[in-house]
């Protein structure tokens, strides 16, 4: 994984795991690597991974089974709700970039409409 040096590493990894669940490369019930293994794979501090796992457990994306390991959550619509969440984040980033350029809501809509209309 390539990191952005200017954003918290835990957030980037958290979003990556969410994206993998949303896109189905991590499926419900699948076991995740241990914290130590994941840190080695991602070449980051294991405390960062511990933080990510804990936050994703709280959010219901992951579920820890004591003494066994950490697994992808099995609640229904998990992938779909994460996809919605990521879409919203991406849209909000896009809109704030466009607003920074001084564009109004109508202008942003027009840009998007024209862009999507392109062949």
């Amino acid at each position: 994984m390539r990191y952005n040096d200017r954003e918290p590493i835990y957030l980037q990894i958290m979003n990556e795991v969410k994206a993998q669940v949303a896109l189905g490369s991590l499926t419900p019930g699948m076991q995740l690597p241990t914290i130590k293994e994941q840190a080695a794979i991602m070449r980051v501090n294991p405390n960062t991974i511990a933080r990510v796992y804990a936050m994703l457990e709280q959010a219901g994306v992951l579920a820890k089974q004591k003494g066994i390991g950490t697994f992808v959550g099995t609640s229904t619509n998990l992938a779909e709700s994460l996809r919605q969440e990521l879409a919203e984040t991406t849209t909000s980033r896009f809109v704030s970039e466009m607003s920074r350029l001084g564009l109004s809501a109508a202008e942003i809509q027009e840009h998007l409409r024209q862009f999507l209309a392109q062949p």
Partner: protein
Amino acid sequence: MSEILAASNLIKRYGAVVALNGMTCRFQRGKIYGLLGPNASGKTTFMKICAALTMLYGGQVLIDGVRPGLATKAKVAYLPDGNYFPEWMHVGDTVEFFSDFFADFDRLKAEHLLRELELEKSKLITTLSKGMMARLKLAVVLSRRAHLFLLDEAFDGVDPVTREKIIDIILDTFDSQSTIVLATHHIDYVDKLLDEVKLLRRGEIIREVAADEIRQNTGKSIGEYYLEVFRHEKAH
């Protein structure tokens, strides 16, 4: 989380030169720290005191509640900047040397790391390139089952491929009971390993911040943050 190292009001002078000027800081178990600062800010002096190589200083250092000395040497693994081994040694001799000196030395791990880092036992120390020497020092120091690892400029002269291998070895060595302190100018090599950054200026700690907190609150990388703090410093 428990404390492994506490320094309070450390003072060290070399003649008229003040190396440490009231340095105070604490280090917890299970964390990786970046001790960052310009040349002559006191990083090496601090590490030497903790490794019980510099015995005359003002203030106090406690390692697990004990002043640096024979007892703490068994817990502290120090990787010094510059050469370290007697010139007559071959690579293989350094393993014997460490094995004799440190009860916590894991010979099997050392043999494994020498192979991993492509270090030939038959090579004479004096024929090693800078990068090779850096690898050798890391291989033997990280083969100790120490509680506190103090690594002074561990990445000097190291190429990008070796850098990744070294990071893998550091991560493999680190656990919730150990503490690693990295003093380095190569901030971008290690920034994803750090829990916390301590900035040292003219022998005093001026900032102590969690690495992700820097990114979150300033929108800067650790390297950019460092530059912003020290940009206006005069070179020594």
